[in-house]
């Protein structure tokens, strides 16, 4: 007799008017989604567009990988100990950023500041290592203008580094806002976006250290 939707709407187990926010919002039924979901979704779309931009740089790097123009190849340049240190720093920072999320969720000013400070220091150490690596490449005559391979390498990895640097500024802003204004709701939405950004940067780095550094450091005879 009645459609499943109508039966759902009259099901007393689902509460008043059958609306259980969070149960049906994803399908456009049951009223508007809570703002936290909408904010996260909007920022998620931005992150995906950012990832698509990175994928274009990845494609350029993969295509130009062997175009070394007689200059140094990836195998000769890359120092994997540096890459391992950078990877460890960024992975640890993504974990402490998660801890900061939990601290914000539990309204702990002290732990929020501590977790964000540790996150920021780890991110800063990552940037320092990256700048040292880049300047050592340039000092060895392997700057971005040396070959198409190096141009695409510096563009891809440098773009990630710029993202991390901007995220560090954002992180400092979040610490100041939490400190000065407390756990106001709009600030918590900003922090939600920041934490998504930081985690997404680590995802991009996972692709970079595997596909740029580890594959690149393989001896030429092992490359596909």
């Amino acid at each position: 007799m009645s459609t499943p939707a109508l039966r759902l709407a009259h099901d007393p187990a689902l509460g008043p008017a059958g609306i259980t926010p969070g149960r049906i919002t994803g399908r456009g039924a049951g009223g508007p989604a809570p703002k936290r979901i909408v904010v996260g979704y909007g920022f998620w779309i931005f992150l995906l567009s950012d990832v698509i931009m990175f994928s274009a740089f990845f494609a350029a790097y993969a295509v130009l990988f062997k175009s070394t123009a007689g200059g140094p190849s990836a195998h000769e340049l890359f120092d994997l100990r540096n890459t391992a240190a950078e990877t460890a720093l960024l992975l640890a920072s993504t974990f402490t950023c998660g801890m900061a999320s939990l601290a914000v969720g539990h309204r702990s000013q002290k732990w929020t500041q501590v977790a964000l400070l540790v996150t920021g220091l780890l991110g800063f150490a990552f940037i320092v290592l990256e700048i040292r690596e880049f300047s050592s490449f340039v000092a060895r005559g392997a700057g971005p203008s040396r070959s198409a391979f190096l141009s695409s390498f510096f563009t891809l990895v440098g773009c990630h580094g710029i993202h991390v640097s901007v995220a560090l500024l954002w992180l400092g802003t979040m610490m100041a806002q939490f400190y000065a204004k407390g756990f106001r709701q709009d600030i918590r939405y900003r922090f939600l976006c920041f934490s998504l950004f930081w985690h997404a940067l680590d995802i991009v780095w996972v692709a970079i250290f595997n596909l740029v550094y580890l594959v690149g450091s393989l001896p030429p005879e092992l490359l596909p």
Partner: protein
Amino acid sequence: MTEHSDYEAGSYVGADREPGRPEERTLAQEVRGYVLGLGLAALLTIASFWADQTREIYASGIAMALLVLAVAQIGIHLIFFLHITTDPDNENNILALAFGVLIVCLIVFGSLWVMLHLNHNLMPMHSLAQAP
């Protein structure tokens, strides 16, 4: 709905819990989730570096193994840090993610495919130019 707005906790793209029922997971459980994610990600990172250094793996397969390990670790990050789940609230996020993955694959593999064929087809000209 206004009474739910007080429970906007940290880093959730979509909730893995319902709005208005924030206390389904205790702090210890949430920390455990992050620790588990960190452990799995660290394991996969170590596996990647091992696969790169070892000569135990069939040589031509190393690059492919690294690609697979990278995808696996990205999956771990999505689940444990970005909290992409199968929750109904997450449907839109997952659809957007699927579309993003499609575009990324088109750009990367499409570029490689087209450019390798171009290189291949232009080879005679290239070797001609190098001829004395």
